[in-house]
């Protein structure tokens, strides 16, 4: 049994979903630090709001109705039962589009080339198009850092890159 193992289990024990082992309980009885952690978890749990009384049937019905109203959805319950009459129509439309493109390209081949210029898609910030991929990464990273200080929930990317061993080592340092 380690202190971190004890802290890991505190939320479940505080919610009566688990119990302390005899060993855990005896440690808790003598370790002031762990007892302070335990008191903190109990206090935080008292902040917990009760489960709200929601109308599950009404929510489900509305969600299903909304999904049915959005044909592009991948909402799975409906997909298998939806009639597929439109598929041949889509196929015909695609074939017509291909034929039209071929015809237009052929007619343009015979025309003299007047000018060629690269075409950029319109962007809100055209100067971003000038950035190299590496520069874009740096910009995005700095935006994320800035955003982290403003948003209630910030990104947490770095710890996720650590291995389990490294995380365990970090935990030991945190615990002191």
């Amino acid at each position, binding site marked *: 049994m380690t202190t971190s193992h004890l*802290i890991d289990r505190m939320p479940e024990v*505080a919610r009566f979903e688990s119990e302390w082992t005899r060993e855990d309980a005896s440690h808790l009885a003598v370790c002031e630090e762990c007892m302070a952690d335990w008191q*903190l978890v109990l206090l935080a*749990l008292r*902040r917990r709001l009760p*489960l709200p009384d929601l109308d599950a049937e009404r929510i*489900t019905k509305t969600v299903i109705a909304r999904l049915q109203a959005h044909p592009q959805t991948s909402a*799975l319950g409906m997909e298998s039962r939806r009639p597929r009459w439109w598929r041949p129509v889509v196929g015909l439309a695609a074939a017509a589009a291909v034929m039209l493109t071929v015809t237009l390209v052929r007619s343009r081949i015979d025309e003299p080339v007047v000018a060629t210029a690269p075409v950029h898609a319109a962007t809100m910030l055209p100067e971003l198009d000038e950035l190299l991929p590496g520069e874009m990464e740096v910009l995005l990273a700095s935006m994320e850092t800035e955003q982290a200080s403003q948003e*209630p929930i910030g990104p947490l990317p770095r710890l996720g890159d650590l291995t389990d061993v490294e995380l365990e080592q970090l*935990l030991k340092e945190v615990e002191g």
Partner: protein
Amino acid sequence: MATMHPTDQEYVSRWRRGDEVAALELVRRHAPPLGRYLRSRGALDADLDDLVQEVFFRAFQALDSWRGDAPLRGWLFRIAVNHLRDQHRRRGGRVMLALVDDDRIDPADPVLELEARESFDLLQSGMAALSPMQREVFRLRVEQGLDYAEVAEALETTTGAARVHYHHAVKRLKELLK
């Protein structure tokens, strides 16, 4: 004899085949904790049904992107977190304040009530001093009862990282409350 409840995966498979009862069971199972979480983040009771409905709408719409081996509850919380972020942006960065439920403090004992309020206030200011990620991990782990894998899924990080953040949060809160 103990009744075995179908797993989330089983309900999802049935819902994929068009079983609307399975969809209802998923909502029954996960709507209350989602509602509590949204409420703890400042959502009004009157809006809860609509907010939870939106989370399930987004979830069912994107069910193909759910990895079956990831905890569904964590994934639903991730959608709820993202939905809150969207709302936060739409409101121009204004944050909804979580409501304090006075019923949780016993008004029959004024001394206890005062102590409880002081402790809650201290905890509240301690929570505000945590990093956003530590605060969210702590909330999900302690207040919402998610395990590390679910917290990791909800906050798009790893289980190990969620654990480290939780321990950091406990340590910092304990220091702040001393």
